[in-house]
C-alpha cells in the first residue's frame, strides 16, 4: 500500500512475518518499535525482487544495503530460517 506524506499509519508486524518498504518521497521517515532487543546475529533477509513474491515496488529500487543486495530468495531463506 502506498501512503501519502501526511497520512499516519502504524502497522503491527507479528513474529515470523517478513516486512519491507520503499521510500516514495525524499526523504521518508519510518519510526518503529521492537519487542526484543535487536541482535545482528538474528537478522535475516529475503530478496526484494524474488520472482516468487513478485512485489510491485512503485519506483525503481535505487538504493539498497549490502545486506539486502545479497539476500537469498524466499525459498532459500525459508530453508535457512527453518
Amino acid at each position: 500500500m502506498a501512503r501519502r506524506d501526511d497520512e499516519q499509519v502504524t502497522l503491527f508486524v507479528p513474529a515470523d512475518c517478513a516486512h519491507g518498504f520503499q521510500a516514495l518521497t525524499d526523504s521518508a521517515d519510518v519510526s518503529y518499535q521492537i519487542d526484543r532487543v535487536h541482535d545482528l546475529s538474528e537478522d535475516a533477509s529475503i530478496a526484494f525482487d524474488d520472482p516468487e513474491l513478485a512485489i510491485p515496488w512503485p519506483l525503481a529500487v535505487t538504493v539498497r544495503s549490502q545486506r539486502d543486495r545479497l539476500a537469498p530468495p524466499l525459498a532459500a531463506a525459508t530453508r535457512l530460517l527453518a
Partner: protein
Amino acid sequence: MKAFLLAAGVGSRLRPITDTTPKCMLAIGGQPLLDIWLDAFDRAGVDEVLVNLHHLPDVVRNHLVARAGSRKPPAVRTVFEPELLGSAGTLAANRAWVGGDEMFLACYADNLTDFDLRSLAETHRAHGAIATLTVFRSDRPSAGGVLELDAAGTVVGFTEKPSQPVSDLANAGMYAFHPRVLDEIAGPPPRDIGYDLLPRLVGRAKAMPVEGYFRDVGTADAYRRAQQEWPPTIGSTSCTTSQAWSTAAGREALWTSALSRASPVLCFFRPVPHRDERGFFCRTFDADVMRAAGLDPAAFVQHSLSRSARGAARGLHVRRGDGEA
C-alpha cells in the same frame, strides 16, 4: 426480561472527553447515553439491567443513585470489573444473574439508536434460535463484525473486523440470547462477543435489520455528529459507524485471522492527525489502543527511526528465533 448494557469500555477514541466522563455518561440531547438505553430497555419490557463498569465507575454509580430516587424502571445493577473481562467474559461471569432459560438482551452502550428493542425480543421468541443479531448496511463494515446471511436470515458467516469484508452487513451490537450461549464462552477472559462467541454461533443464529437511527458514537467525530442528529426525525435511515482508529482498516488487503486471536496478526492502526496552521499533532502510540487490539504495549523495548532517500528500499527483513521481527 433481563438485559446487559456493556459499558466498561475505556473510550480511548474519545479522549480527552473520556478522561473525566465514562462513555455511557456522554450527553446526547441533554441526557446521558445510559439513560437513553435504560429508557429503551424499559419500553421493550426489560425489568432488570446489568451494567458492567471499569473506567470511572463512580460517575456511573452516582448517576444511578440519583436515578433510583425517581423510582424509574428498570432496576439497575452495576458490576465493577477491575480487569476488563471482554464483552463475552462479562456475560459468562454473570451467569447466575441471567439464571434459568429465559432469553436476555445485550447491547453496547456506545451505540446510539432509536431501534425498538421489543421487535428484537419478539423476533427472537418467534424463531426460537439460540441468538438473534442485529445488522445494518455500512460503507465501512470492517470497522466491526461483518455478517453473511442466507435467505431465511440465518447467519452463515461472521468475521470480526475482516480485512476484506464479504458483505456490507455490519453487526449493530444488539443481541437477544438464549442462556445456552453462555456455554459457548470458553477459556479465560478477556473473551469478546465478536471475536470469540459469534463465530461459534454461525449456522444457528438469526439476524434482523436495524430500523431507524443507528450510530456508533465511539469517536469524537461521531459523538459530535450524534449530538447534532439526536433525537432523530421519524424515518431517518441507518447511519454508518465511523472509527478514528481501526485495527483492520477497510478493504485494504492484508491477511488477518479474524476468527482467532490465539496468535497476533498484522494490524493497522490509524492515528488521526490534528491539523492547524502550525502543522499537525498526532499520537502515534497508545497503550489502550494496542490492548484493545489484543497486543501488549509493554512489550516494546527499543524505539528507532530510519530515514530513507526516494527510491530506497529496505527489506524484506525477518528475524530468526522467537519474538518480534
